[in-house]
């Protein structure tokens, strides 16, 4: 896996690079701002870009905007956003644009090396990896609010499966987490696809669509 890292804080950038190198992930380029991101992606064609939200010169959401722009210019580019805070609005914007894997994780999740590498691989392969904080906030909204359409018809169990899918877990991981057999998870997932009226195509694609429905409903 070839990745680029865009992070202005040298301490964190070097920390992530060292951690990835130990796990044999190839860091092909590093940058410190939004323009740098667009440059290294054109130059290196990486499998995945790891991008900090807050970057110079504005130190606001520069990184997010650059990532969205990069996905527009390079369809299929996988982007993992790292941030020190979760912001549902940003997550929704990221998911709304283009195809290819996306992730949004809190920076401290990097410390859980195995889970972080898993998330990287999932996103690079076109999947999603959303921080459980983002998911928790969005799920709270959906539960209390009216609307959400088809999502309202899901049972609590199916909803739980969908939350875990939104975090980007595999069926096996979902089964472990819910302490059920993998077959039960598959059954829930097929019910979810049915209720959300997602066409039968390849499962990964439907998975992404289900998660998108989940994240963009209501609000």
């Amino acid at each position, binding site marked *: 896996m070839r990745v680029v890292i865009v992070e202005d*804080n040298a*301490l*964190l950038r070097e*920390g*992530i690079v*060292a*951690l990835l190198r*130990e796990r044999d992930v190839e860091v092909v380029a590093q940058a410190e701002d939004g323009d740098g991101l667009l440059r290294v992606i054109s130059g290196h064609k990486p499998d995945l870009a790891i991008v900090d939200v*807050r970057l110079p010169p504005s*130190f*606001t*959401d520069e990184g997010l905007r650059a990532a969205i722009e990069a996905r527009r210019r390079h369809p299929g580019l996988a982007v993992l956003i790292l941030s*020190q*805070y979760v*912001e*549902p*609005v*940003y997550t*929704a914007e990221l998911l709304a644009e283009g195809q290819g894997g996306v992730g949004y994780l*809190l*920076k*401290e999740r*990097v*410390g*859980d*090396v*195995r889970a*972080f590498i898993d998330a990287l691989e999932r996103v690079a392969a076109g999947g999603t990896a959303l921080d459980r904080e983002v998911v928790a*906030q*969005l799920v*709270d*909204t959906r*539960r*209390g*609010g*009216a*609307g959400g359409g088809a999502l309202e018809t899901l049972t609590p169990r199916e909803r739980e499966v969908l939350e875990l899918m939104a975090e980007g877990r595999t069926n096996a991981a979902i089964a472990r987490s819910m302490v059920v057999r993998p077959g039960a998870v598959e059954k829930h997932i097929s019910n979810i696809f049915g209720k959300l009226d997602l066409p039968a195509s390849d499962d990964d694609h439907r998975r992404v669509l289900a998660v998108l429905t989940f994240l963009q409903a*209501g*609000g």
Partner: protein
Amino acid sequence: MALSLHAALSILLCVLVAVVWAAAGGGEFWPMWVWFALAIPLAIHALAFDVRRRPPARAKALLVHAQVTGLIAAILIVIWALAGFGTFWPAWAFFGLALALGAHGIVVNRERLPQARERELVERVDELTRTRRGALDVQAAELRRIERDLHDGAQARLVALSMLMGRAEERLEDRPEVAALVRRAREEASAAIGELRDLARGIAPPVLADRGLKAAIESLAERSLIPVTVDVHLTRRPPPVVETSAYFVAAEGITNVAKHGGGAGARVAVDGDADRVVVEISDDGPGGADPVGSGLTGLKHRVEALDGELEIDTGPGGTTIRAVLPCGS
């Protein structure tokens, strides 16, 4: 023009009278009485001219009074001198004139004193308003700086720490009990990061600084347990202190509706221009918001610190919280 003509004619007459006196063979110098008679109307004319030319002012009447008094005193002295000196009888007249002028002066100044005091107070209030506003602006900027310092400083270091501990954990696979300790340490670091994040969010949510009021309130609506419609119209970005206050009014208002609105949805409307920002949160719930409850009291203090107003209108048809926040200048 009229005054200079008057003066020229008077001087001409004076010279003429003196010539007549000389031609008549001198003697007692009677023309001085004519001169005196000519000088009085000239002096009055000059005085009137001067009065007309001065702009109207509070003390103008007093000044005119003083000038007239001066003129009368001068006339009396001249008459006394022309009459061959002797006992200084004009002293009595002076006494009367001075008394009248003094009384006039006191009356005018008694009127003026409270006005001066009032003006002083108005200036002081203006100054205090300005400096308090300045202090609040500085405070808002300081809080945002603290938020950024936390982000780039302590939080970033803790994140770096948790990365290092994660790497250490990876290398301790053969010593599971030590790995477990390191993992616990990493979880503690994560908890500290979480607490710092909550602290920073309480100061000002990052999305407010990043994107402004509209995005921040939309984000609140996203997170809320009840449906919230958001309608924001701003002709320009308000100063940070106003923006932060407007945000917290909306946040507290939405929380209030979620708590007491009986499941009703909330509407948030923000309307702002260069002078002020109006935030209104309304619902169709059962009403009964407590205006002296801690949340609303806190809001009231926040709004009043900006010289704004917070109105709470609650009844069976619903509750409306409306804050008007002046933007200062």
